[in-house]
């Protein structure tokens, strides 16, 4: 029995309990119990992991265990985590927890909503704990499909269009991904699907790599909002219900970066070094481009979605720099962006739930009517523009310093270009805050509105605390991740 297995079993258990639960209170009970259990579990895991590392366990993956599944196809259920996955699991559990509270008031078919929500989180957790190509891909797709119903049924706005678009684009990506994975499997001798063993073998011929690296990278990159395949994200996030936006932007988009790093680049280092520059340019574009297009948006969710494009672009940008610092920064950026954007979407959801508009031209003077939410919104904004003391700063600085350490001039120059995005970020964040949070209340209707209720406060406060904690004491996280990215980076550098 492996501790990691619980990350899959608990959601399954939750799904089952939800299936048999009769009324909304039971549903809520199940969700709270389950998500809390997951939160605690990830905390325990982190503790144990750090402990094991402190005891000098230098294995690349800890908590390893294999169950043979399809022996004739070398498909195993291989579990194992390193610092990166631990961090991601922590993030996911926090967001599942807060997402539960953020959608506390959901009335319309709550049971089914949480059913699909749990399936989604099942996929997410499964993806991060497995190190077997097949199993990873399976969990990846499990995480994708519930989005359709969640957005299409419980969403808002042009929900059906957005849901279909999101699902199809991501499925298209996973189609490329599947081709890439099969390519990796067969061109590495078709003896194992275990990532570590494939990396050990390291026998994928160059021409195969040049074919399959782009497939795999783009396949994951689409989920990481890689330009020009990012257009699902604004529509999807705009239409999705709060908790789903949180989980999707917070965690699911991280699957992209994680996969790009863990599968595409780790298993095909030569091609990564060969073709890296193309994707570097693309990611640089999405960093700057996302920020610029966020400036003129008027829908809160669109602004956030585009800023997500910019920030997730930064993740891919950093991992392509292939040095320890930048990559560590990338992972921290995944964490910090996950938390920040989840906070954003939670707050937007709460504001929208009250004002029934997300248009910053109609919102004004929220600070007067709902101070708690507004203050948290300002905090989220400041975190988003990389204010010291919040996670965003740590992540961005690590990325920039790391990227600039690159010996190649081209890399340093595009680093500076990417750096310029922080100014643009400031512009749209302050524009948004100035327009909608500050100022006098324009719409008399708003004066009646109430501030956050306890359940909303729970989710928001948890998120704010985690952002601040990551921003004020980053060193332990930084070390944990830094050690884990090292083997991968070494593979990339040495080859």
């Amino acid at each position, binding site marked *: 029995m492996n501790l990691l297995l619980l990350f899959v079993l608990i959601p399954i258990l939750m799904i089952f309990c939800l299936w048999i639960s009769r009324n909304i209170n039971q549903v809520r009970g199940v969700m709270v119990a389950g998500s809390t259990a997951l939160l605690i579990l990830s905390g325990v895991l982190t503790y144990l992991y750090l402990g094991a590392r402190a005891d000098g366990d230098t294995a690349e993956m800890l908590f390893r265990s294999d169950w043979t599944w399809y022996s004739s196809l070398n498909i195993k259920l291989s579990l194992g985590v390193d610092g990166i996955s631990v961090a991601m699991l922590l993030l996911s559990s926090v967001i599942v927890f807060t997402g539960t509270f953020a959608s506390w008031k959901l009335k319309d078919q709550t049971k089914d909503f949480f059913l699909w929500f749990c399936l989604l989180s099942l996929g997410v957790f499964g993806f991060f704990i497995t190190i077997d190509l097949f199993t990873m891909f*399976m969990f990846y797709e*499990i995480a994708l499909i519930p989005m*359709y119903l969640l957005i299409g049924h419980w969403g808002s706005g042009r*929900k059906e269009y957005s849901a279909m678009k999101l699902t199809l684009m991501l499925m298209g990506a996973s189609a490329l991904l599947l*081709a890439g994975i099969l390519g990796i499997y067969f061109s590495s001798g*078709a003896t194992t699907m275990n990532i570590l063993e494939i990396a050990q073998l390291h026998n994928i011929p160059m021409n195969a790599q040049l074919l399959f690296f782009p497939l795999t990278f783009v396949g994951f990159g689409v989920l990481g909002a890689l330009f020009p395949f990012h257009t699902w994200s604004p529509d999807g996030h705009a239409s999705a219900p709060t908790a789903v936006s949180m989980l999707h932007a917070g965690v699911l988009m991280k699957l992209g970066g994680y996969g790009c790093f863990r599968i595409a680049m780790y298993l095909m280092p030569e091609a990564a070094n060969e073709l890296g520059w193309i994707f570097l340019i693309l990611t640089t574009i999405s960093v700057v481009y996302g920020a610029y297009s966020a400036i003129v948006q008027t829908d809160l969710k669109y602004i956030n979605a585009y800023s997500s494009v910019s920030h997730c672009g930064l993740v891919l940008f950093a991992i392509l720099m292939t040095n320890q610092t930048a990559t560590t920064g990338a992972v921290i950026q995944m964490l910090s962006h996950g938390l920040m954007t989840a906070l954003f979407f939670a707050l937007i959801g709460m504001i929208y739930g009250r004002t029934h508009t997300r248009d910053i031209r109609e919102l004004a003077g929220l600070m007067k009517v709902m101070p708690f939410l507004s203050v948290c919104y300002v905090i989220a904004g400041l975190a988003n523009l990389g204010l010291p003391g919040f996670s965003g700063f740590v992540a961005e600085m690590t990325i920039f310093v790391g990227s600039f350490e690159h010996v190649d001039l081209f890399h340093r120059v595009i680093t500076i270009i990417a750096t310029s995005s922080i100014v643009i970020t400031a512009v749209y964040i302050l524009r948004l805050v100035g327009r909608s949070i500050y100022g006098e209340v324009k719409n008399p209707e708003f004066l009646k509105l109430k501030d956050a209720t306890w359940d909303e406060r729970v989710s928001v406060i948890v998120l704010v605390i985690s952002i601040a904690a990551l921003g004020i004491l980053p060193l332990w996280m930084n070390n944990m991740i830094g050690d884990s990215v090292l083997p991968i980076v070494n593979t990339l550098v040495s080859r």
Partner: protein
Amino acid sequence: MDYSQFLYMKEEVSLVGVIAILFLYDLIAGEKGRKYFSLITCLLLGGHIIYNFLPTSTSGAVFGGMYYYTPMMTIIKSILTFGTLIVVMQADTWLRREDTKFKQGEFYVLLLSTLLGMFFMIASGHFLMFFIGLEMASIPMATLIAFDKYKHDSAEAGGKYILTAMFSSALLLFGLSLLYGACGTLYFDDIPATLDGNLMQMAAFVFFLAGIGFKISIVPFHLWTADVYQGAPTSVTSFLSVVSKGSAVFVLLTILMKVFAPMVQEWQIIIYGLIVVTITIGNLFAIRQKNIKRFLAFSSISQAGYILLGVIGGTQLGMSSLVYYVLVYMVANLAIFGVVSIIEQRTGMINIEDYNGLYLTNPKLSFLTTLALFSLAGIPPFAGFFSKFFVFMAAFEKGFYVLVIIALLNTIISLYYYLLLVKAMYINKSDSPIESFKSDCYTRTSLVICLIGIVCLGLAGVVYETISLFGYGM
């Protein structure tokens, strides 16, 4: 003559026995006897499956090489029988209707004799045997399709089927004659030695391929499919879409690997092209369908394309993944057809927009349908994902990268139209949704079986492992 040879064809023998029993029962059973007809049939079929299930790990040929028996054949036969059993269960509601209940017996007998034909087709070691099996499978099929003989649709479908079937089998026969002329023998074992890929043999092969492609409904030999599926009684359609398709695919693979092995380069190219057009055309037609049976017809066409991915490799992996795919596809498709037929029986509604808001009234049915659709679309953790993955592996192993990528991109389109049905049930609002009803125990049992299959076939690796274990010796 050594009559002990009959012991080696126990599936066929026992099936003949079942048919005989049912025939006699139909004669003696009066009005009230008919009530238990489906029960008896199910029991007999179940017994047949159990009796034949455990694959004899030996393989060989009897009747002078006319008849083959291998574990793999046993498995596929059991799978087909299993599918037939489920079809029988789902047909019950329909057969209890006033206008059909007096011909219940005919239905079962015809159905099972079709199955018997397929068995022979599968087990054949000689093209004569194959031809007899094929015809034996398709002639009763025509009558089944035209079973609702007072319904225009059913009659027209039957007519279309029999005409195209005769046309295709005529061409097939002509092809066989050419093959005979070119090789001087029609034994599967002897033909490969004499194949040198000359034009006559090529033509023969193509005629043969067209004939079998007609049954698998490969584009461009598929045009009958949609009309017949739409017109035929739903249970017959489901039988058509899973059992006969499955058997035909299996036969195609065995014959390609056994007989036309020397011409592998050529037929791989042909299959390559056929797969691409089949998947694409099937998807393109499915997108805009309104009638759900027609919709499923086209989806089954594109599914046939995916099944062929297992064929093109011509490897053991391909073989086992193909059989596995047939099984999984059968379960998922039968689940949907079960829902469709019960709804048709209860409400007569058959269009996709009739399903709007089904979830609110019949949550269980629509949940099952959603799972089945996801399985067809290849979404984990449902069985369809695994089967698709394996056939892709099979094709990829042989280096058909581009083909696999084309097929993969087609999955997006297929996902799109499957999601349209999901959307109808879950998202679309309807002012007059199908009112909620309770389905009878036969249907419910069959649906539960399908549900279990959809969920477990993939997650329980043992199923595929067993199949691939007996994958040797086709």
